[in-house]
């Protein structure tokens, strides 16, 4: 008893001493030993990455006992799969290889099984019909390495709007993994071509970026060329013919209203919006020379930006609106130039062999896409705004007219091989994934819309 009491008496003092020692150790060691430990770690410098896309699993969204919901769940997974595969950054693993079906949002995935399949991420989703007739679509994106949820969301939609919900989910997945905004919930306007070569009908058409929801916008009475989306509104500017003279028009998709732009003395073409949507920059040809003009859509006042005896055309604004890239033959062959938005400080940026045309500044500002012609072949490529780091992404008998996705990571353009029809294609910035966008007719001159509001 006495011994126990003595021990108890000493206990607080002992604990105090031990605490003192620990505190001193904790205070004194970090400065020395801990730093030394950290410094002593071997360091491995990782500066190269795999060229492979990120493997991801997208099982069919669960639909429970409701066959319609189950079908919609499967369709949504298909659209997401198609979107992600087309980006070049993801490789959706074949559904036949999946280790399990996920019957509901509450089912805990078997992460070791998904990891064994090399899936770095897993999409789990569920579709359920609501009493008011709408659909509820919920999804989670899992990190299979940690078993943690990266993002999760639930959306309500009308039954016939499931496809758009799928694009929105694909955008969420893209953003969560890459850190950049997606582009799947967007549209492409293009020229739908039909009829024989000597009597070609070219109409304005619009579709989702994956080719769904195709819609014809103009009647086909007159030829339509080079449509360009406004970055801020549901308006398109394009080239059409008025009394056999090419003129630039403005077209509102929602109202169908069409308006001819400006009263220029010569023919106008190659229009493109400024980033704020308030101006249109275009070319005007007269007396054998072509100059670049800008028109303010609010005041309808226009101003000449270049004034040379050469052909200056295909202007495109930088995303900050401060500069314009264009092509000119002033050096003897078509090359790319940039200038300030007021026309000053014109500088050549392309110096490669061949001719360069249709430059388009990326909405991110980091690249300029172009068409290149060399040795009887056409190429789609990109270069930095200073002309450096030129890379060819695609080539063919005729590939032309690149247009950026709203996030600046994918290009759409049109391709025609000898003897074949003309098709709209997309290609990612790495050049890994090129695909044809399905259209009911032949299609050319695509232009990407901004993300839908």
């Amino acid at each position, binding site marked *: 008893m006495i011994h126990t009491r003595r021990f108890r008496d000493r206990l607080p003092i*002992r604990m105090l001493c031990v605490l003192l020692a620990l505190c001193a150790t904790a205070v004194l060691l970090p400065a020395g030993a801990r730093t030394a430990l950290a410094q002593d*770690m071997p360091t491995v410098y990782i*500066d190269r990455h795999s060229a492979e896309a990120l493997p991801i699993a997208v099982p069919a969204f669960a639909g429970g006992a409701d066959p319609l919901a189950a079908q919609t769940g499967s369709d949504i997974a298909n659209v997401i799969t198609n979107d992600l*595969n087309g980006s070049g950054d993801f490789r*959706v693993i074949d559904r036949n290889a999946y280790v399990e079906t996920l019957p509901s949002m509450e089912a805990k995935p078997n992460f070791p099984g998904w990891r064994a399949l090399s899936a770095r991420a897993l999409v789990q989703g569920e579709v359920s019909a609501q009493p008011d007739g709408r659909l509820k679509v919920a999804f989670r994106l899992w990190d299979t390495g940690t078993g943690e*949820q990266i993002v*999760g969301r639930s959306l*309500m939609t009308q039954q016939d709007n499931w496809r758009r919900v799928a694009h929105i989910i694909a955008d969420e997945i893209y953003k969560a993994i890459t850190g950049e905004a997606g582009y799947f919930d967007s549209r492409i306007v293009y020229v739908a071509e039909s009829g024989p070569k000597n009597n070609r009908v070219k109409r304005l058409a619009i579709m989702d970026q994956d080719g769904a929801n195709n819609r014809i916008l103009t009647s086909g009475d007159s030829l339509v060329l080079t449509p360009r989306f406004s970055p801020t509104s549901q308006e398109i500017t394009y080239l059409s013919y008025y009394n056999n003279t090419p003129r630039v028009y403005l077209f509102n998709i929602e109202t169908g209203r069409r308006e001819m732009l400006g009263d220029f003395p010569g023919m106008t073409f190659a229009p493109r919006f400024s980033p704020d949507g308030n101006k249109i920059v275009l070319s005007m040809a007269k007396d054998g020379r072509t100059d670049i003009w800008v028109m303010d859509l609010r005041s309808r006042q226009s101003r000449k930006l270049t004034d040379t005896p050469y052909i200056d055309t295909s202007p495109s604004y930088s995303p900050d609106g401060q500069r314009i890239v264009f092509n000119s033959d002033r050096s003897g062959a078509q090359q790319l130039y940039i200038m300030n938005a007021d026309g000053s400080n014109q500088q050549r940026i392309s110096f490669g062999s061949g001719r360069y045309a249709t430059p388009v500044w990326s909405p991110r500002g980091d690249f300029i896409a172009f068409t290149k012609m060399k040795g009887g072949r056409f190429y789609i490529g990109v270069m930095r705004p200073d002309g450096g780091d030129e890379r060819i992404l695609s080539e063919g008998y005729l590939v032309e007219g690149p247009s950026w996705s709203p996030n600046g990571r994918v290009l759409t353009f049109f391709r025609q091989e000898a003897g074949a029809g003309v098709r709209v294609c997309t290609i990612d910035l790495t050049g890994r994934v090129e695909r044809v966008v*399905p259209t009911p007719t032949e299609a050319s001159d695509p232009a990407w819309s901004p993300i*839908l509001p």
Partner: protein
Amino acid sequence: MKRAFILSALFHLALLALLILGVPLHLPTRDEIPEESFEIVDLVEIGDENTSLSEALRPKEKEPEPEPVPTPPPPQPQPPKPEPPKPEPVVTPPARPQPPEPAPPQETDDAPDEAPVVQAPPKPVRKPPEPKPQPQKPAQPTPEKPKTESSLDAWMKANQETPDKTQETPREVPSPTRGGRISEKLTATDLAALKYHVEKEWRLPGDGYAYEGMVVEVIVKTTATGEVLSVEALRDPTLGYDPLYQAFVSSAERAVRFASPLPVPPGKESVYENGIRFQFSPRGLSLR
């Protein structure tokens, strides 16, 4: 009682003094410590041969002699087969369904009931050092290719006077290890094998252009067999939780997790258990 207290206090003070003063005395002085360096033990072309190196360094192979095994070529990029979307035979379809109420997604409360990805509180982070030249092309020619570990050690010892500062490595502690008299210091070959092993698991969207200039250090601790136990990212405080940087950090963490198990050279298990630092900084280069 009082005496006992005094004795106890004296004892603890002595212990404290020993901790404060005694420990450093036993540390080797700067002069005693050989210059930090890595020794060139093998000229390795980082590419094809690294696979064999990583294989050879696996702990399961008890044979310490690094056999130059014919290597499989590095994995070729396999672009996913484009899956053509289902053609919609709609020529003049009804007006596009107006993005009604659902378009701005209405959040419901039962979907994300789990916390989103763990966002560790900002840690006091050192500014990562500038990327140093990689040990791919050692500047100094190798006198001769060491055949065995004993000759390797001898060669390393002989070359300690001509240190190469291109790679930071742990200080050599000349202590016997489980695998015999093998230095626990990772050699250039070990580091190159680790580098390639992790790089082929690093998936960076869009060829990494968006992440150029970003740096993150990841401290990885493993078991003796190389199984990754913990992954701790030391973020660049100037970028914080920028979504692009967050994605970059996640890609680095994912790379080391999916690189598990890491190749562990025999006798160097404790190095891995203490932790290895991986510094990720993309330069727009990919393994093709």
